[in-house]
């Protein structure tokens, strides 16, 4: 029996975008703002479409894990511990992630309000400060715009690193089983489905 011939779509190459995103942020931190697309698009699909089309088809990060893990054999392809995809861990991680996002927005506000100054560094795993000052030397935007860039880039890089670690240890896309955006959009879809 022949398998169904699958057509390749442009959005199956979005793993390139994932690499490009981190590369651009290495040269100019303002590019970090483009990461908001990965935040807003899944929510638009979930809220207005009631689906997870973004996760299912467009997620560049998920695709990158697949390319590295499956195609380049960088994954052990072993089952992840059950708790990693359990509801309490997924929603717990989402809560933690949103708290950290809120903290980052507050830090941006501090710079906006003049209560703090721009810190040209990124923070990995919410703990380790890494100097990143070459990526910004002033622009037409006020300092808080760059501060948000540093904060958001830190968040994106940290979550990708976590995803890479679980990709190597467990299955290619183990990250997807507790990805905060995935949990959020599935939650929205479940709520929408209930009222329908």
């Amino acid at each position, binding site marked *: *029996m022949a*398998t*169904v011939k*699958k057509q390749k779509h442009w959005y199956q190459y979005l793993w390139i975008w994932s690499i490009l995103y981190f590369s651009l942020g290495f040269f100019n931190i303002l590019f970090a703002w483009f990461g908001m697309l990965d935040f807003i698009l899944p929510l638009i*699909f*979930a809220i207005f*479409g*009631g*689906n*997870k*089309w973004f*996760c*299912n*088809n467009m997620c560049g990060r*998920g695709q990158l894990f*697949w390319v590295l893990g499956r195609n380049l054999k960088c994954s052990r*392809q072993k*089952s*992840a511990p*059950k708790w990693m*995809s*359990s509801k309490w861990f*997924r929603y717990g991680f989402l809560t933690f992630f949103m708290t950290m996002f809120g903290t980052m927005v507050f830090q941006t506000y501090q710079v906006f309000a003049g209560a703090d100054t721009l810190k040209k560094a990124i923070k990995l795993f919410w703990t380790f400060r890494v100097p990143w000052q070459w990526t910004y030397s002033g622009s037409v935007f006020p300092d808080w715009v760059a501060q948000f860039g540093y904060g958001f880039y830190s968040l994106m890089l940290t979550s990708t690193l976590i995803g890479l670690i679980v990709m190597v240890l*467990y*299955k*290619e*896309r*183990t*990250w*997807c*089983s*507790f*990805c905060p955006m*995935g*949990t959020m*959009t*599935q939650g*929205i*879809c*479940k709520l*929408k*489905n209930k009222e329908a």
Partner: protein
Amino acid sequence: MGKRKANPNKNNCVACGVCVGQCPREAISIYKGCYALVDTLKCIGCGICQKACPADVISMVDEGEVSCGNS
């Protein structure tokens, strides 16, 4: 013993869609962003989706037992 079919547990499914992309028969869809749904008429029981599933919610069962784990 009947034919083997993929049987996702919809309570634990994270609806990531990895299985959908891997299925060689286009037998799986994500139902309204909530969980993976298998078309048992199209499923050939190859088990590719089971291997790819990051949450390990897909089990291969005999045709007659499909949806038993879907309560």
